[in-house]
């Protein structure tokens, strides 16, 4: 059994209102030097497969990310 971690982020150039809202709140809290903020999601999948990365990549292609507006990164967590 492996733990596959899929990170999905809004694609560069796509408006991320959630990131903007978080950025606004950080600035209001007094944090200085805050640049662009983007909010994505992390999906952890316990997976029993010979080639977990390949299977996870297929999951990304068929469901987990919308390539029009999102980029996804797959890695296997060895821990």
């Amino acid at each position, binding site marked *: 059994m492996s733990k596959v971690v899929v990170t999905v982020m809004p694609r560069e150039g796509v*408006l991320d209102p959630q990131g*903007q809202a978080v950025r606004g709140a950080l600035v209001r809290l007094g944090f200085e030097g805050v640049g662009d903020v983007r909010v994505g999601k992390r999906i952890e999948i316990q997976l029993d497969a010979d080639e977990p990365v390949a299977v996870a990549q297929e999951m990304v292609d068929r*469901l987990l990310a919308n390539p*029009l507006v999102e980029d996804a990164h797959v890695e296997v967590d060895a821990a």
Partner: protein
Amino acid sequence: MRVGVVRFPGSLDHESARRAAEGAGAHVEYAWHADTRLPEGVDAVVLPGGFSYGDHLRPGAIASRSPIMNAIRRHADRGGPVLGICNGFQVLCEAGLLPGTLRPNAGLSFVCRQVELEVVDAETPWTAGAAAGARLSIPIKNHDGAWFGDPEEGRVVLRYEDDPLGSTDRVAGIANRAGNVMGLMPHPEEACDPLLGSTDGRRLFEGLAR
């Protein structure tokens, strides 16, 4: 005219969609997301608004992979009319039956208000009851209603006069190239009774019944 209204877990506006279609003279049957075929003899399909599967992952993403969608895809490929309203629009985009996708509203707010729309394309089965350039007053109610995509990949059917959501090119509704599959964020089914302030939504359902 027989219209199939598709219900997913989390659909909310199927009753309004049924009433609107019946008001235009259609006979309505419900289909369930787990069904593998549409009700017998259905001429047109409506995917209503709501929050199918709780909008988890992305709005419409999980519903677009449900068993009934294979039947809807076959119906659409045969040229059968399909209308997606709000969440139904999100489902059709996620299914690849319509171009683009729906993003969180630019202001990150849930927007619930009447909007003024321009009919850009009156040649689809759904807009045949209106004239190009006609103005429709129809409400929106959504959080993820900003259409993002390339308008050239389909046919822009409706535009906001003043877009409160941040959509590409003020697109409120778009159809596939053939015109038989259409989605829109505004709710025509909630604009069919004078009590609700506008009956302009009837035109979309009457267009179908013609």
